[in-house]
Structure formats: C-alpha cells, structure tokens
C-alpha cells in the first residue's frame, strides 16, 4: 500500500494528460445538469405546440418562424463582421442561387472568407 505521490509535483513539471480519464463526480453532476437543461430547451418548444391547440392565427405566426430565426441568427452575426464576411456571405448566396448545392456554397463561403480576410 504505497502512499500516492503528491500529484502536484508531477502535474506541474510535466503537465501530462495523466488524468485524461479522470471523472470528478461533482464535475460530472454539473455536466449532466447542463445536458438536462439543454434537452429541456430542445424539446420544450415542440412539446408545447404538440399539446396546445393552436388557433389559425397563432399557426400563421409559427409559419414565419423558420425564416425569422435564420435572419435573427444571421443579422447580428453579419453586422458584427466586416467587408470580408459580407463578401463571403454574398458569395454563398450567389453560388446557392446558381447551383442549388449546399456543399458548393459552403466551400465557396469558407474559401471566400479565408481569401477575403487575407486580402482586405
């Protein structure tokens, strides 16, 4: 029954990932609580609309959600960017329009942003 080495010396000298598989029970509990909360947010909205009868008026509101969410994600993201981001976004739009291929559009966007950031 050898006494365990004081772990601090080993860790501070080498910083080996010797504890790579360590699972602190408190940390695990916090992570699982984060997971539970996230699942609630992912499932909560659709649970609500599956259990509450929506009027036609409310359904009309829900029908604009997809586009509105997309714009609400994009707007501030692009507003925080600069000419490089705007140019690359325009490139994605253009390629999407011409080819209807999401893969090509993404490649154009990522390639474009790298190039534009290097140039601008």
């Amino acid at each position: 029954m050898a006494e365990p080495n004081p772990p601090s010396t080993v860790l501070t000298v080498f910083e080996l990932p010797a504890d790579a598989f360590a699972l602190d029970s408190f940390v695990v509990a916090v992570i699982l609580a984060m997971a539970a909360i996230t699942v609630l947010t992912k499932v909560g909205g659709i649970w609500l609309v599956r259990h509450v009868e929506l009027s036609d008026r409310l359904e009309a509101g829900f029908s604009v959600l997809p586009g509105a969410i997309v714009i609400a994600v994009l707007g501030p993201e692009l507003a925080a960017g600069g000419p490089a981001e705007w140019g690359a976004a325009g490139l994605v739009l253009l390629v999407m329009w011409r080819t209807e291929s999401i893969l090509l559009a993404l490649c154009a966007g990522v390639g474009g942003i790298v190039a534009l950031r290097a140039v601008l």
Partner: protein
Amino acid sequence: MAIDTDASDGPESVLSDVSERGDEGPQASESGSDAPSAESVTFEWDGVRAGFLTCLPVALGVGGYGIAFGVLANQVGLSVAEAALMSATVLAGASQIVAVELWADPLPVAAILVTVFAINLRYSLMGAALQPWFRHLRSSRVYGSLFFMADENWALTMRELTSGSGRGAFLLGSGIAMWLFWVGSTIVGALAGETVGDPTQYGFDFILAAVFVALAAELWEGRSSLVPWLVALAVSVVAATLVPGRWYILLGGLAAASVEVIRYDG
C-alpha cells in the same frame, strides 16, 4: 400543412391552410399516435442516411470548433473524459464554450446553468418550427431526434423538409453526423492542448453563417417573407447590442411571429 403548399406563395398559403383544415376536420395526429394516414412524412433509414451524408461536410467544419472547445476545456482543467462527456450529452456548441469560459475553481454552478439555459432557449423555437412535419411522427421519434438538434443540422433539416422530401428522420441522421464529429474533435482538441491554432484562420468560424445564408436563400418565399424578415432583422440586430448572450435570436424570432399574428386576417 406547409408541405402541401410549397408551390404557393404569399397570402395564398394562409388561405390553403384554412381550407385544408376544413377538409381534414379533427386530426388524430395531435397526440402523436402513428395514424396510417400520416401523410407524406416518413421516418426511415433512407432519411437517416440522407441526413448523415448531407451533413458530413458541415460536421467536418464544425469539428474545427470542437477542437477549439477541447483546447479551451483542457486549459480550464477539465479532463479529456469530462470534456468528451460534455460534448456527448450537451451537444450545443455555443453554450458549451461559454460554460467553459465561466469555469472557475469554486464552480459557479448556478451561473453556468442559467447561462446554458439562456443560450439554448432558442432551440425551443427551432424545434417548434419543425412541428408541421413532426406532427406526423411518434413522440419518441420526435424527442429522440431533437436531442441531436444543433444549429447547423436544424438548418439543413429545415431545408430538406421545406423541399417536400418528407424525410422525417433527416434530423436524426444529420444529428448523428454532428455528434460524431463534435465528440471526436473535442477529444482531439483536449488531447492536443494548446498546439492547435485559432479556428478562424481556417475560416471555420464562418461555417455557421454560410449554412444559414444558404438556408435563407431557400426559405425566401417572396413578398410574404419581407415583413417578418425585416422585423426579425431589426429586432435581433438591436437586441444583440443591448442584451447579453443569445437572447437576440429568441427576441427576433418572437417579434416576427408576433407581427405575423397581428397581421393575420389582414
């Protein structure tokens, strides 16, 4: 409803909603019972496979972020196993990165949990937006698929479903691709530590925006989209400067929906 009306544009879609409701009368599908009349939305391997393959290149790019998250988690003292556990069970990139930035010695548990909730609340809205198609699916399939929902594969799934393919399992398949790359890249990042550079230098930070621009191009329905989109744009941009976190997404979406509710009938 929206699946049948994708050829229509503008106010007609609202009208056809109403008339369709009249035709069908009381719906049996609201309780999630798998009625044989479950129109054209299926839940099959074909959909899982299509979602997985479509999402692969996107998931590969998201992996760039997973590496960044792993590096960050490693720096604040999470073990590789703990970082991987978080990616495998939470599967919501932005909230994980912010949570890890809050990580400190006496863990600020309440702050972390509240922040995670606030950042991820937008998923409620995104999930609800899938209901027109998911109403035809059994509850277990809906909720099981939603565990795998992240921004990027939600966007790809909306694109798939609005195109009318009726592949209800697309979210699950694309989510599995996201999950594999997210967890795998977290492990790589946590092991590699500081040796990996900034993901912005490879343009990975632009992938989310690129996916959403592509989706916007497809969701545009002509003039009927103009008002809700402008409302969402104005509210989200203003809210982003005034409110911390990601509340602006929720606020922008809700504002647009509210305006549409008010305009309805008009």
